[in-house]
Every structure is written in structure tokens, then in C-alpha cells.
């Protein structure tokens, strides 16, 4: 074994499964072969609230090739604690698009045709799908995602606001957004006696296995979930979605393998989305811009099926020093699908509001927005009092300012014109927690000089398979070519899911320690690998319990230049720069792509994307890629992401913080702030669509320049 080779973490190692992906050989869930596969097509509810009065499958069953029609009339009851997964369990309809029946057939076209012929009778009730201010049914939940208190209070915010020399009191709104990973949620389910294998598109095969086992009353050992390649998730595949249960139900009902891929249209109903939000932010500061009060009050929606309360105001608990502070969340249970995780739940919408309000405060104080943020840097985590493991937001702001060319910026809004364009620049800070969760891994040396690492981690495109290869290679002291990393299968050692930017930190900890143990064993055996190999296993649960108390967060700064055409309302973003402090970067190539991908989604959040609720019929009006504007290459110009080297010893063996989500945090605020700088008008409702710009065109100073 060599130990004097260069470290491979930190280099730009090519994606290890890249070859399979560029040649089309990487297999995704729907593409696994099995004999005699039956096709499943779900029937979506046509009403937003009410009771099913009857299901007439006669015409559907008459379609040649149809095997069965499943509904609450004949489907076996499912267990488990997620009501979104207990499909066909009652005659109630909780939202439009909810699965109320499904057709299983020999061919996809027979199933699709028959699905249209399942006659469902409804007793519809009046529904309410619109989040609006001061909704009479709004309530304070017990906790917000995943387990934060819904309300936090320090000092006396009202008194401090009353005494403040400068105040800002504004309300921002964000619409619903859909994750829209490119791969639709899909499952191929295969039963063998009372054992179930599901080839599935998810963000964590151990989690999916446990939920599937619970749904069918099986032991986890009876279920295997296989997901080596997943076509994106962004949170929407973090909790299993109904298609996995449906495929398993259908396969059992017809005694054959069965598969289902949701249509893009149906994904908008049953795969989660980011809740819309109404956010009031009040800031108070002394004349020098030092904040004395910060209040962030959020209203958002959940469903009648189960409560999901996004932690939107949580970043306001740690971002800035302010002795008087209030954060609250209120939710209203509407006749909608349950909102869920979408890239940086909490931080993404919450920091949009906070960082927009900070810009308004900078203007009100006559301060440069970077200087305002520097003045309000907290020494320690303001609410918990914990020390920061590392906090380099100021360095990100300062370095970013130098790279972006911020110095000498004229703060006057609405005064720069270039032809038909009004030009402005804006900045915002970013943050995202750096956590890790227990996971297990094994590392095995074989007599041929190779090493195999096993862990039920997920690579949904993030590059985790590659990062884990690098981590293992360094821990073993061997080149990465000699390491095989096996992930994406619940038969491997149990691992946490890909979510909360915790994947690589969680799995990497287990992999690194398993490899260290293996090396110790090998050293103990004099470096000789026995004929049948040698293996070590590591479970990080105890390490994580013993982690010292620190406030651990990644930070960043985002800079945007925008051009606004006040005649058409068009907004372009010629330049976007993100600078991040996220611990040690394990793979320069995949990390840069993560940051830029997040920033692109943030740009789209600011300007392009929006799921419009259908007040009349329920569900969403725009529910395909023709009407929901996922950014195309024409929407993005020059996006650059850089990072600051950060040496934080309080994180994990790699010294890394998660990077999958922070890229989307702050982008929308930086763009909105730049739009204000360009036009002199504050747009506080996202997305900043052309029609919204045109509505306020008379106020745009630059029109008369």
C-alpha cells in the first residue's frame, strides 16, 4: 500500500459514473429489465375536496390487456405513518390530482386508455386552495421542519422597533415552486414470495426501504430498494412518493413485476413542492446601521392530510446580531397536496425575505449593503449562544466584492442606462446549516490490490459517488482507480438520505472511518491481504452523539448584475457571482457544478418559476414543462461560483460542509436588490415577471432618463 501519494480530495476527479451517463448505459429505475412486466397508470382525483361516491371500472376492464383496476374498493389497507403514501385507503379526496385509482395492464397504452375510462363519482365539497394574508384558519404549528420551535423570542422587539432610529417594515411573497427533477418519479416492483424488490428513483434507499416495509407490514429485511442512478431530486425524492407504493401494490395484485413512471403533469400533484409564503420582516437599527431589532413573521400552507411547516424564518435566528428578535411561523391547512422539501427549505425563501429587507435597511441608513452586513456580524450564534465552528460570510462578501468589481458602486437607484436597458447591481448573503447524520459503511481489501467501499448512499447527480471515492482513496492512501464505491442499494450498509446538504458529510464520515479501520487491520496483518479479503465496518452513530456543541453553517455571498427594459418588463442577468465558504471542497469540478446549478435555480426563482394555484378546480394551473418555466440556456448568461478555503476542525473527518443547497440561498435576493438598484422600484413579490415590472413602469425613474 502506498501512503506517500498526493491527496485526491480537493482535486477535480472526473465523475466516476460519468462514462455510463454519457454513453446512455447508466440504468435509471424505469429501465431495469424484468420478465412479463405489467404497466401501471394512476387515475388522479378530479376534485379538490370531497368524497368518492362510486368507482365504476367496467369500461376500463373491458379494454383488451387490462388486468385490474385498483382503488379503495379493493386495495388492501396500507400501514405506515405517511398519509400521502397510504393510497387507496379511504373514500376521501384531499386534493386535486391525488391518486384515487390505478389501472394495471399488459401494455402502457392499454393502461393509459383504461385509466381514462375509470368512472369515478364524487360528492364534491367547497374547497380552499389559496394562501392569503391573515387566513382565518392559520395556526401556529408545534414545530417547523424538521424539529425547530415555531416561534422564538428574545428581548422586546416591539419596544426596540419603537425606539429605533431607522426601521424597515416590509412584506415579501414567494409563490409555490416545483422541484421538477428531470427524471420523473418511477418504480419497478418485483415480488418474490413475501420479499419485495423495488427499482426506484429516490434520495435514500435505506429510507425508502423502511417506508415501503412499513407500508406493507414487512420487516425491512424483506424489502430491497435499488437506486444506483437517480435523475435529480432536489428534495422531491427525499421522502418516498406514492409511485413506489403503487408499483408494489400493483405487482402484488397481478402477480407480475409492475412498473410506473409518473407523467410530468402528474408530478405536479403528487411529488411535493415548495410552499408559497407571505413574509413580514421588520428591522430596527441605530443611525450607524447597528441592528437593535429583527422580526420575521411567516405565513405558509400545509395540507389537510399531514402537516408540513417549512422553517422559513429559521435563518433569521442566526444570521445577524440583534438583541431583540422575534420569529414566528403560522400555517394554514388547505385542500392541497402536502408541500415538502425543495432545495434549501427554510433558508431559500427565508433568506430571500431577510436579505431583501437588509438591502432596504442599507438604503434607509445610507450605508453600503456589504458594510451593513459587516456591522451586524454576530460574535456567536445569537439565539443558542454557541460558538461558530467557522463563519466566513464577511470574507465571502469582501472577496466577492473584489472579484465582482463592487468598489465605487454608485448607490443611487434608477440612474444607469445602456440603450433600452436600466442597469443595476445587488448583493445578498447566503447560509445553510452543516450537519451530519449516522451512517454505516464497510471497506474491503481484496487480494487483487483493490478496495470496495459499501454504503447505501445516494447519488442523485450531486457527485457523491465520486466524492466518496476520493475520501476512501485518501483514507486508504491509495489512488482512486483502485477503489470501487458501491452505493444506491438498501442491501448495502444503512445510510442517511441525500438531503439537508448532509449526504457527503454523513456518508463520508462513515467511509473515511471504515477505511481508516481497514488500514489499521491491514497494518496489523503486515500489509498482506488474505486470499478471501479483509474487511472493516464503521457506524458513526456514537461519534455524532459525541460531536461538540458548535453552531455549524456554511456561508456565502451572491452578487448580481441585472438589466431591466422598462418598455417590455424584460429582466436579464448578465452576471451572477457566488462566493462560498463551505469547509474543504472535496471535488472542485462537481462542487462548482453544484453551486452553479443552485444559483441557476435561484435565478429562476427570482424571475421565471411559479406554480399558479387553480382556485376554481384545485391543483395547479401550470403543470407541465411548457407552462412551468424551468430555465433554459437562454435564460442564463455568465454564472460563476468560487470558494474560500476554510479549515474547520469541528465538522467531520473531511472538514467539509454541504454544498448542494447553499447555491440557491440568497440568489433571488441579490437579483431583486439589483432590480431595485436598476429601477428605483422595489418588487417584493416573486417572481419579478415582466407584467409586474410593466405594472409599475410609471414609477421607474429611468424611464425619463
Amino acid at each position, binding site marked *: 500500500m502506498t501512503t506517500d501519494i498526493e491527496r485526491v480530495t480537493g482535486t477535480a476527479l472526473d465523475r466516476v459514473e460519468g462514462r455510463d451517463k454519457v454513453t446512455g448505459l447508466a440504468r435509471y429505475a424505469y429501465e431495469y429489465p424484468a420478465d412479463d412486466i405489467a404497466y401501471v397508470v394512476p387515475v388522479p382525483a378530479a376534485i379538490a375536496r370531497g368524497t368518492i361516491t362510486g368507482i365504476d371500472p367496467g369500461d376500463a376492464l373491458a379494454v383488451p390487456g387490462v388486468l385490474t383496476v385498483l382503488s379503495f374498493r379493493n386495495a388492501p389497507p396500507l400501514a405506515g405513518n405517511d398519509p400521502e403514501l397510504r393510497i387507496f385507503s379511504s373514500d376521501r379526496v384531499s386534493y386535486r390530482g391525488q391518486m384515487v385509482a390505478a389501472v394495471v395492464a399488459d401494455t402502457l397504452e392499454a393502461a393509459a386508455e383504461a385509466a381514462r375510462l375509470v368512472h369515478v363519482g364524487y360528492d364534491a365539497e367547497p374547497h380552499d386552495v389559496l394562501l392569503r394574508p391573515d387566513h382565518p384558519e392559520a395556526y401556529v404549528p408545534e414545530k417547523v421542519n424538521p424539529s425547530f420551535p415555531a416561534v422564538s423570542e428574545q428581548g422586546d422587539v416591539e419596544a426596540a422597533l419603537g425606539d429605533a432610529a431607522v426601521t424597515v417594515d416590509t412584506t415579501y411573497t414567494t409563490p409555490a415552486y416545483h422541484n421538477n427533477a428531470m427524471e*420523473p418519479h418511477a418504480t419497478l416492483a418485483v415480488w418474490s414470495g413475501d420479499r419485495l424488490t423495488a427499482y426506484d428513483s429516490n434520495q435514500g434507499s435505506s429510507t425508502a426501504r423502511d417506508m415501503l416495509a412499513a407500508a406493507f407490514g414487512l420487516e425491512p429485511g424483506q424489502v430491497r430498494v435499488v437506486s444506483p442512478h437517480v435523475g435529480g431530486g432536489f428534495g422531491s425524492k427525499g421522502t418516498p412518493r406514492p409511485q413506489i407504493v403503487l408499483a408494489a401494490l400493483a405487482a402484488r395484485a397481478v402477480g407480475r413485476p409492475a412498473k410506473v413512471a409518473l407523467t410530468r403533469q402528474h408530478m405536479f400533484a403528487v411529488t411535493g413542492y415548495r410552499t408559497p409564503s407571505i413574509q413580514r420582516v421588520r428591522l430596527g437599527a441605530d443611525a450607524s446601521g447597528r441592528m437593535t431589532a429583527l422580526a420575521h413573521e411567516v405565513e405558509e400552507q400545509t395540507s389537510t392530510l399531514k402537516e408540513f411547516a417549512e422553517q422559513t424564518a429559521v435563518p433569521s435566528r442566526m444570521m445577524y446580531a440583534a438583541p431583540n428578535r422575534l420569529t414566528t411561523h403560522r400555517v394554514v391547512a388547505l385542500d392541497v397536496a402536502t408541500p415538502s422539501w425543495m432545495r434549501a427549505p427554510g433558508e431559500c425563501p427565508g433568506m430571500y425575505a431577510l436579505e431583501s429587507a437588509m438591502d432596504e435597511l442599507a438604503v434607509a441608513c445610507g450605508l453600503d449593503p456589504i458594510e451593513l452586513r459587516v456591522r451586524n456580524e454576530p460574535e456567536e450564534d445569537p439565539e443558542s449562544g454557541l460558538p461558530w465552528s467557522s463563519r466566513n460570510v464577511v470574507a465571502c462578501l469582501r472577496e466577492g466584492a473584489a472579484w465582482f468589481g463592487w468598489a465605487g458602486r454608485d448607490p443611487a437607484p434608477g440612474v444607469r442606462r445602456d440603450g433600452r436597458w436600466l442597469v443595476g447591481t445587488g448583493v445578498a448573503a447566503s447560509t445553510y446549516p452543516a450537519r451530519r447524520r449516522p451512517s454505516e459503511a464497510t471497506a474491503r481489501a481484496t487480494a487483487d490490490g483493490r478496495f470496495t467501499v459499501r454504503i447505501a448512499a445516494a447519488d442523485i447527480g450531486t457527485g457523491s459517488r465520486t466524492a466518496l471515492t476520493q475520501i476512501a482513496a485518501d483514507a486508504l492512501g491509495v489512488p482512486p482507480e483502485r477503489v470501487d464505491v458501491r452505493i444506491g442499494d438498501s442491501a448495502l450498509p444503512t445510510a442517511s438520505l441525500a438531503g439537508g446538504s448532509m449526504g457527503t458529510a454523513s456518508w463520508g464520515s462513515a467511509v473515511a472511518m471504515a477505511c481508516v479501520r481497514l488500514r489499521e487491520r491491514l497494518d496489523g496483518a503486515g500489509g498482506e491481504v488474505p486470499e478471501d479479503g479483509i474487511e472493516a465496518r464503521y457506524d458513526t452513530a456514537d461519534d455524532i452523539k459525541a460531536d461538540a456543541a458548535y453552531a455549524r453553517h456554511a456561508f456565502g455571498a451572491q452578487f448580481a448584475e441585472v438589466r431591466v427594459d422598462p418598455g417590455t418588463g424584460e429582466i436579464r442577468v448578465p452576471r451572477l457571482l457566488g462566493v462560498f465558504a463551505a469547509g474543504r471542497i472535496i471535488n472542485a469540478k462537481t462542487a462548482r457544478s453544484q453551486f452553479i446549478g443552485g444559483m441557476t435555480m435561484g435565478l429562476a426563482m427570482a424571475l421565471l418559476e411559479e406554480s399558479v394555484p387553480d382556485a376554481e378546480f384545485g391543483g395547479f394551473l401550470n403543470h407541465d414543462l411548457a407552462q412551468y418555466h424551468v430555465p433554459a440556456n437562454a435564460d442564463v448568461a455568465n454564472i460563476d461560483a468560487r470558494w474560500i478555503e476554510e479549515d474547520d476542525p469541528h465538522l467531520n473527518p473531511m472538514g467539509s460542509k454541504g454544498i448542494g443547497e447553499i447555491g440557491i440561498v440568497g440568489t433571488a435576493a441579490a437579483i431583486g436588490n439589483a432590480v431595485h438598484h436598476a429601477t428605483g422600484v422595489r418588487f417584493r413579490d416573486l417572481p419579478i415577471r415582466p407584467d409586474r415590472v410593466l405594472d409599475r413602469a410609471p414609477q421607474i425613474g429611468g424611464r425619463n432618463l
Partner: protein
Amino acid sequence: MRVELTVNGEPQVADDVWEGESLLYVLRERLGLPGAKNACEQGECGSCTVYLDGTVVCACLVAAGQAEGAEVVTVEGLADGDALDPVQRAFLDAGAVQCGFCTPGLVVAVHDLLARTPDPAEADVREALAGNLCRCTGYEHILAAVRLAAERGGEGRS
């Protein structure tokens, strides 16, 4: 109905094809070639891009019957044995791949662009890829891959 076509140089026959079926379905479900992806089935995303008689098309919008007698090339047909096509190599080198679901369509679209325009201007590249959505990468690295492949010309085979 029966559809006979050539895919990646091999003659193929699909039987019992329903009249409304797409070329994408025939490739993925009947011929065991799932390289081209189905992400929207309405011509919005380009994940299903393949060559049909030398022209790139969204296979989800082509009826199977229209492919009767045609020459189809999918992403699976671009590499020469173990040697990647220069476009595939450039996607790897430039880090233009994340989840990989958009990748097959993009690789075929870029292959076509560079075959027609070996040294494309940025506007040509953006136009050629206008119909290919990628939710993961934000396009920066995809555009870099196109530039890399163009710079290397035919030399990037590996």
C-alpha cells in the same frame, strides 16, 4: 403493426406496435435501448433527442410509424466500442454531467451541431441547445463542454 428500422446500424423489428406509439417508446420499451430519456413526452425538454435519418428529433414526438425504414442513431450508438465520441469525452472532462438524465439528449444534440458547424459561435450553440433542459448544471459546464469538443475537433476520441 410491425415497424422495421435500423438503430445504431443494426436492423430492428418491432411487432404489435400500437399506432399511437412514439419512436421513444419503441426504442425504450421494445428494443431495450433506454439511453434516450422520457422526461416530459411533449417536446419540451430534449431528453429524448435522437437522429432520425440524419436529423435530430425529439423521439417522443415522432410516431413509431414515421420511423418505418428509417436510420435511427441514439446516444448508445455514438461511441466506437470503448472509445468515447469526442462530444462524450468533452462532457466528462468539462464536468457537464450531474444526474445524467438530460445528458443523452444533449450529447446527441451537440454531436449534430458540431457535425454541421465544427466551429460554432456562442449564439449557434445556444440556439442548437435551446430545446434541451438541464435542471442540475445551470448550463455553464455544458457550454464549456461544447467549446472543448469544438476546440479538439475530431481529436477527442478516447
